[in-house]
């Protein structure tokens, strides 16, 4: 009764990695530009635009205030529109992206705002255009911090994938819930938790290492 086939665990790990990496990738592709727009259009920003900033800012706040489990259910019609189904790993990825993109946008925004204002001043004194400021000054200077941000986002995503089981997403977290919690299988609970701890450790170590390397310390 305590036994669980290694195949099932392996399968769950693949699902987790798949969900996390696809939603992280697309979430970053959406979140990064959003963060840049926030920083550029904010009051006293390089391309100040009150209306654009207000709309973006509120949208991100609204999505971020929804608990993931609610979001998951609320956007079912949208999910169907995008991936053509409402159940399975792909169907879980859509809400994961919607969940993580604003999160990444907010964290990257903070990273960008932490860039020494003197650097922006330098960029302006050199006559750099807004896009040049972003490319040659803001991003390189914020990169280490952005990497740490993405590390945090990745770990947040792993947590969120556990709930993706609700729409049949599978994954390690789901395994813990369906095999362990619902069938009172302590062994599976412990096993999955250990696997999650190891994955989180690896990701955090990797992220910190990369950030350190970029900072030349």
């Amino acid at each position: 009764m305590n036994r669980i086939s290694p195949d099932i665990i392996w399968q769950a790990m693949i699902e987790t990695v798949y969900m996390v990496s696809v939603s992280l990738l697309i979430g970053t592709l959406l979140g990064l530009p959003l963060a840049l727009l926030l920083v550029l259009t904010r009051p006293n920003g390089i391309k100040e635009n009150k209306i654009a900033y207000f709309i973006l800012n509120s949208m991100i706040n609204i999505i971020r205030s929804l608990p993931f489990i609610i979001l998951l259910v609320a956007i079912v019609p949208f999910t169907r529109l995008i991936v053509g189904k409402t159940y399975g790993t792909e169907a879980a990825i859509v809400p994961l992206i919607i969940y993580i993109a604003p999160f990444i946008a907010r964290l990257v925004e903070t990273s960008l705002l932490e860039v020494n204002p003197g650097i922006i001043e330098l960029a302006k004194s050199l006559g750099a255009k807004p896009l040049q400021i972003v490319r040659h000054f803001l991003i390189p200077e914020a990169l280490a911090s952005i990497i740490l941000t993405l590390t945090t986002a990745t770990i947040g995503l792993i947590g969120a994938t556990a709930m993706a089981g609700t729409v049949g997403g599978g994954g390690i977290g789901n395994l813990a819930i369906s095999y362990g919690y619902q069938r009172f299988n302590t062994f599976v609970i412990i096993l999955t938790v250990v696997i999650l701890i190891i994955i989180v450790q690896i990701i955090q170590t990797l992220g910190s290492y990369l950030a350190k390397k970029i900072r030349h310390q």
Partner: protein
Amino acid sequence: MIVFKHIVKEFYQKKKKITAVNDVSLEVQKGDIFGIIGYSGAGKSTLIRMVNGLENPTSGQIIVAGKDIQTLSPNEKIFNKKKISMIFQHFNLLESKNVFDNVALPLKLRNESKEEIDRKVKEMLSFVGLEDKDKNYPNQLSGGQKQRVGIARALVTNPEILLCDEATSALDPKTTKSILKLLKRVNEQFNITILLITHEMAVIRDLCNKVAVMENGQLIESGNVIQVFGQPKESTSKDFVETVITHKIPKDLLDFYQKNKQSYTLLRLKFLGENTASSLLFQLNKRFNHVESNIVSANVTELEGTTLGIFTIAFSANESIIQEMKAFIKEFNVIVEDVNI
């Protein structure tokens, strides 16, 4: 080269108006090393930042290299900015890039070729004495080295004007001296006009040929350094001059001359050039050989390659002889002032 005409800059902070710069007019000529000095909050940074468009004046005109910078089109503005470089108090180096890439950055923005960038960056790094540090990152450099990188980055685009906002304020006195020497070389070797702001009179003394004193957003005094150091008019200017030239009379001497006010008259002599001093004192003693004269304090300062001497001398003579002596001293083109004790 840079002309400020009735520049006013107002800021609003929580609906409260702050006049950071109040009707400043000033002209910096080509080849000048022009220093603006003032206490914190005087408006110096605000003023200098208007030259390269980091700040726009509320009213007034700024003419850089013959062009009113506010009437320029955006493209012309960028073109104009290319002639102006800036160095900063906290260096503003990109921590994520090594020394070479930091210096190369302005050229990259201009899409110059790799070979050009390589050549120019190496040339500038050797000018500032950091040719062997090109692969280092800013956090591996000392403050003085960081500012050298800042200077190399500023010069790599062949500017005509260099703006320095407190470029040495974060450095120790010895490093400050070496950076000031480097800036002097920048001015002489490349004929770059330098406009700098500082709150240290020693920086003005060691580097500038012209100086302006700012207080509460206004320009209270300006002129050649020799003129302002020799005869500061406003009390703030005097305070600044006194930080580097003291003509303080030692306490016991002061006590003595205060007690013997009737017998001695104290005069302060200000003159340029060392020879003036020795020949004047010699002639004075020869001509008025019956007058006892004692040097109470003396200070010689090097300014722009010449020396400014300020001597305080006590003479024991009656009023008519003193008047005669003053007239005699003036013939040597030496300024005489009464000293009240």
